[in-house]
């Protein structure tokens, strides 16, 4: 299995993602510059966090027009796996690969802290090694993480079990007090209908070593690696 980490001007979590794949997943991984368009040798791509194009216009809005994104859309349509983290989630929404939008945080602050999220379903290629209902401690670092969508989209996400992680307290209770940014229904991450594209605001790649305060993020990568091993 081979991973790619897409690099836009302004990406800044690309090296963290690369490190996690090479060290913890132990698989080959390349950086993919945003002007490259050939993704044929990859099984999964990660769209990392950061501030692509300086967040100009809207977070993720300009990255969507990078040449690589046309290839990412085809890649996703072919059933291969796309993981968008933070700015990567924003880009996936702007590109229409995931529904909804990420708005300015409810209290306007850039929030940089560890948060708790509850795994709502183990039925995805990204969470199948985790238990539904388990709580992960993952860092968040964003100013635009306030997930919004219309009623129809929300009903669809719920009905199709596509809300993958939600902000919660340390005991796993999903409360308004545990909602850092005002996201609808405490949504921290969702997947597409085919379940091969996941976007989430928390940073699992920054939580893979105890030294960094949490290694709970490994479960996401372990799941994806197990999925790829099973289909290989």
């Amino acid at each position, binding site marked *: 299995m081979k991973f790619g980490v897409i690099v836009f001007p302004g990406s800044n979590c690309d090296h963290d993602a690369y490190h996690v794949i090479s060290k913890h997943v132990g698989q080959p991984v390349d950086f993919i510059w945003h002007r490259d368009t050939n993704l044929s040798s990859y099984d999964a791509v990660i769209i990392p966090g950061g501030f692509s194009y300086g967040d100009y*216009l*809207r977070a993720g*809005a300009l990255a969507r*027009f990078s040449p690589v994104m046309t290839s990412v859309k085809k890649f996703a349509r072919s059933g291969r796996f796309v993981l968008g983290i933070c700015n990567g989630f924003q880009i996936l*929404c*702007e590109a229409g690969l995931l*529904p*909804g*939008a990420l*708005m*300015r*945080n*409810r*209290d*306007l602050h850039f929030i940089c802290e560890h948060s708790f999220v509850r795994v709502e379903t183990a039925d995805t290629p990204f969470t199948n090694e985790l238990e539904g209902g388990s709580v992960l401690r993952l860092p968040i670092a964003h100013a635009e993480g306030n997930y*919004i*969508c*219309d009623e129809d989209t929300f009903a669809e996400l719920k009905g199709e079990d596509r809300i993958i992680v939600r902000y919660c307290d340390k005991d796993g209770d999903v409360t308004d007090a545990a909602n850092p940014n*005002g996201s609808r229904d405490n949504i921290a991450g969702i997947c597409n209908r085919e379940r091969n594209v996941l976007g989430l605001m928390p940073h699992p790649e920054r939580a893979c070593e105890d030294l960094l305060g949490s290694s709970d993020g490994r479960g996401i990568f372990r799941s994806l690696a197990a999925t790829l091993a099973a289909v290989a």
Partner: protein
Amino acid sequence: MKAKVYVNLKPGVLDPQGKAIQHSVELLGFNGISDIRQGKYFEIGLDSALDEAAARESVSRMAREVLSNPIIEDFSVEIEA
């Protein structure tokens, strides 16, 4: 020729920036404000050879596909000779 594009959050979408601005101006003593919504404004210089209808069509498409996010924002376009 010039196009002016205004992008605003849709009614009902919470605008925390607008709320913060409203709070600040009220602290300064401005009264009678019922709401402040913050939007974006673009000025686009256009080739004067374009006719107005074509310019409006082209700029509207630009506004729909790039300048606004139709999930959360509405836009309006004005064309000036």
